[in-house]
């Protein structure tokens, strides 16, 4: 545990990619074999649930530290991390720390789900008494909350590839799918002969970078294919051994979430892997994302949901056909095979081919780009006809060209301190626009989009202009104006403003504007009317 806690803290402390890779490489070269698979599970979002609620953990910590709950919450507001707060309020103990390994601790925790709450409490508190404060913090991370420390899947893949002296693409593939430390070992996962021995295993998604230069700089139009960038859930549909698997880009096995697509099990040939987008789909055309959003996160997909937000799959790539990996073929060849497969498949509403746009010059494409929203698309995907299907986010062969976000100017009205790296700064903002009675109505929260320098200035303003406190939230004198961008907008009965925006973010600080110059709720509703044609 000591070694893993140290790795965690060191990773947390640096933001240099190379330093992180070195730390990970080092760990995966030197850690005990049975610890490696657990570390890997944690870094790839496979932490098992131990059926411990964060509310319980807080209560136990309060009991142990002999402090009231409100004081614990005040401490949490200042620290910004629950696991760390617990480790800091617990009084130092005199025990010599037990030297259990990471996998020992998982063995220790694995019985928790079967225990009563009182037994869980004893077990967790006993663990705290065997650990140093730093280890308690990391231990708490094993138990609850998200395990985020700025280590991306790509980074882990690179580190393991370097440590194992293997190719990164292969490692990425091996880390996909629904393995757990209970059903595999590090050795088996990384070194076993047959990568596809798990029928459900998807391929690593190829992700595009946003194109920043003029698309004309891409050169000869004949080298490129262009299609709409669909606004849905990026997914792979896998049919192997007469079984259908649907994987989302978030590496979630979501087969059950999309019963409409199960018909593909009968229609697709075995040994097929398609890459594409699941979109909401009505009257034979794709719909904006906010319709799909209503069914994301639902545990039970009811008939009502299926009627109100039906989906379809739009295929744009073929990664496996007749059981063989086609990723090394060119984009052009894969497209031809995809079209053959599509044409040979019995037509169904739920299986569509992403059409290629016809164009002779880049200016045609630029004109068409303006019609993206009308086509329920977020812009274009531009793909090199000669390119292979790569693993992860790579520059060169795939580019995305997104439409500009919708935007309004809004006033900063509430602020809260950030978490993690930004614990001491007010970085979580709520923005408002004016209603007809000249009152400010909050409509969006946004976190990012400012430079560190701007954050420092805004933080200073907030600290000097607090009007009210509600727990960690500060009401701020409505003075600062920001341009807030968002990707979509829909009606909402949950928000006071009556609207909900998707992916709100700060585009820029409008220091040239006063609060009175900010937009109105009317303006927002006008945008809603234009873009929410359902």
């Amino acid at each position, binding site marked *: 545990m000591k070694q893993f806690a140290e790795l965690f803290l060191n990773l947390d402390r640096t933001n240099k990619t190379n330093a992180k890779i070195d730390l990970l490489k080092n760990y995966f070269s030197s850690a005990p074999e049975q610890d490696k698979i657990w570390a890997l599970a944690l870094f790839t979002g496979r932490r098992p649930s131990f059926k411990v609620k964060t509310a319980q953990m807080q209560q136990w910590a309060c009991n142990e530290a002999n402090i009231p709950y409100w004081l*614990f919450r005040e401490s949490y507001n200042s620290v910004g991390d629950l696991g760390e707060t617990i480790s800091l309020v617990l009084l*130092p103990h005199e025990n010599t720390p037990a030297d259990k390994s990471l996998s020992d601790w998982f063995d220790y925790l694995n019985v928790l789900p079967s225990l009563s709450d009182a037994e869980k409490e004893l077990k967790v508190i006993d663990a705290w008494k065997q650990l140093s404060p730093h280890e308690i913090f990391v231990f708490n991370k094993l138990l609850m909350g998200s395990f985020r420390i700025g280590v991306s899947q790509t980074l882990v893949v690179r580190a393991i590839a370097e440590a194992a002296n293997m190719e990164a693409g292969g490692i990425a593939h091996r880390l996909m799918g629904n393995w757990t430390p209970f059903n595999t070992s590090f050795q088996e996962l990384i070194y076993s002969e047959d990568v596809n021995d798990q029928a459900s295993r998807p391929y690593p998604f190829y992700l595009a970078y946003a194109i920043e230069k003029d698309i004309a700089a891409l050169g000869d139009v004949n080298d490129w294919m262009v299609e709409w960038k669909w606004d849905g859930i990026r997914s792979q549909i896998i049919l192997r051994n007469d079984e259908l698997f649907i994987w989302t880009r978030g590496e979630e096995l979501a087969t059950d979430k999309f019963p409409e697509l199960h018909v593909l099990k009968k229609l697709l040939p075995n040994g097929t892997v398609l890459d594409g987008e699941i979109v909401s789909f009505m009257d034979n055309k794709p719909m904006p994302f906010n319709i799909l959003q209503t069914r994301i996160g639902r545990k039970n997909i009811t008939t009502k949901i299926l009627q109100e937000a039906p989906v379809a799959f739009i295929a744009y790539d073929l990664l496996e056909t007749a059981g063989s990996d086609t990723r090394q073929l060119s984009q052009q060849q894969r497209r031809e095979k995809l079209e053959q497969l599509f044409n040979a498949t019995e037509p169904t509403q739920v299986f569509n081919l992403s059409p290629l746009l016809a164009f002779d010059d880049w200016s045609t494409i630029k004109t068409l780009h303006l019609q993206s929203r009308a086509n329920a698309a977020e812009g274009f995907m531009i793909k090199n006809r000669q390119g292979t299907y790569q693993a992860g986010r790579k520059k060169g062969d795939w580019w995305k060209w997104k439409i500009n976000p919708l935007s309004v100017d809004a006033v900063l009205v509430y602020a809260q301190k950030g978490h993690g790296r930004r614990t001491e700064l007010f970085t979580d903002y709520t923005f408002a626009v004016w209603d007809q009675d000249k009152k400010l109505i909050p409509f969006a929260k946004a976190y990012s989009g400012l430079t560190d320098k701007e954050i420092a200035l805004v933080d200073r303003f907030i600290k000097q202009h607090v009007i009210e406190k509600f727990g960690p939230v500060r009401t701020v004198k409505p003075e600062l104006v920001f341009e807030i961008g968002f990707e979509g907008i829909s009606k909402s009965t949950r928000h006071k403003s009556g609207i909900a925006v998707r992916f709100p973010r700060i585009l820029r600080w409008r220091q040239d504007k006063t609060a009175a110059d900010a937009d109105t709720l009317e303006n927002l509703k006008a945008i809603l009317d234009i873009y929410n044609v359902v």
Partner: protein
Amino acid sequence: MNHQPLLRFTGNSIYCPTADVHIDPSVAVDRAIITHAHSDHARPGSKNYLAHRDSAPILRQRLGEDIALQTVEYGERFTINGVVFSLHPAGHIIGSAQVRVEEQGNVWVASGDYKLEDDHFAAPFETVKCNVFITESTFGLPIYNWQPQEKIFNDIMQWHTKNKAEGKVSMLLGYSLGKMQRILKNMQLENEPLFAHGAVYYCNERLRQAGFDLPALTLVTKDMDKKLFKNALVLAPPSVDGSTWLNKFAPFSLGYCSGWMQVRGAKNRRAVDQGFVLSDHADWKGLNEAVKNTGAEKVFVTHGFTSVFAKWLNENNIEAAEVKTMYGEEEDHETPIAAEGNLTTE
């Protein structure tokens, strides 16, 4: 019986109306008692100052050599318009004092900043019994628990040894008044090549001239040969973090001594390589102990987590109130980084 309180919070100072004396005023006044020489407590412009003798050298350096300054010893009583004042050790930095104010048997104590641990340079904290205690609360949350300083000094030494082995300069940041003297007095650094940034150097020199037993430091100057810094420990104020002044020391490891280093976020955001949790303020336990020991029936909480600590004391049967408007900005514990970098406390 006088019905107005002995001390009042004006927003700019702690004020004694009967004596017409301000404690640590943030604006210019006629008569100011200064608890210690950190710049958020000692502001320029007042007509007459009074402070402990050991505060004098730095007060003059910072507020002006020609200020009208009267000094007293700890425990020495002086009376203004029937009000009896005396200063008592606060253990915060050299010369730091709690101000005891007594009128007709009614005793108030304004703590200024304090810590309970003896740092072997400042006179150690003295418990002063009182009816009303005005306490700071910089680290008034139960997450702030200090380890014994010996442990921290050991950590610093280990870090320095490791840096030498890796061919790195040890760049140690901390407040030039207080923290640096504490480090110099407690760590055996005689045999280390020791360098100092101007802020640290001039503060140290001033104290040495005033007769305090501190080692001589070498001032880092522009034209210095980089080779001189091999194996060196360099002492600098926190403000150098992120500045070009650091460039000539590369490769170096950045260590930072502060109570704020207790929290991971604070450490990460400053991009320091090593945080040392060393503070000249009382930790949670220390604040509670100090308040309890005064026997005060009423406590006012200033500076820091005022509302939290006041609420906690009330729940523990000590009547307490938060003083909201002292010294400007709410919750702004971060150093407003001054050019010289040595101008603020924690």
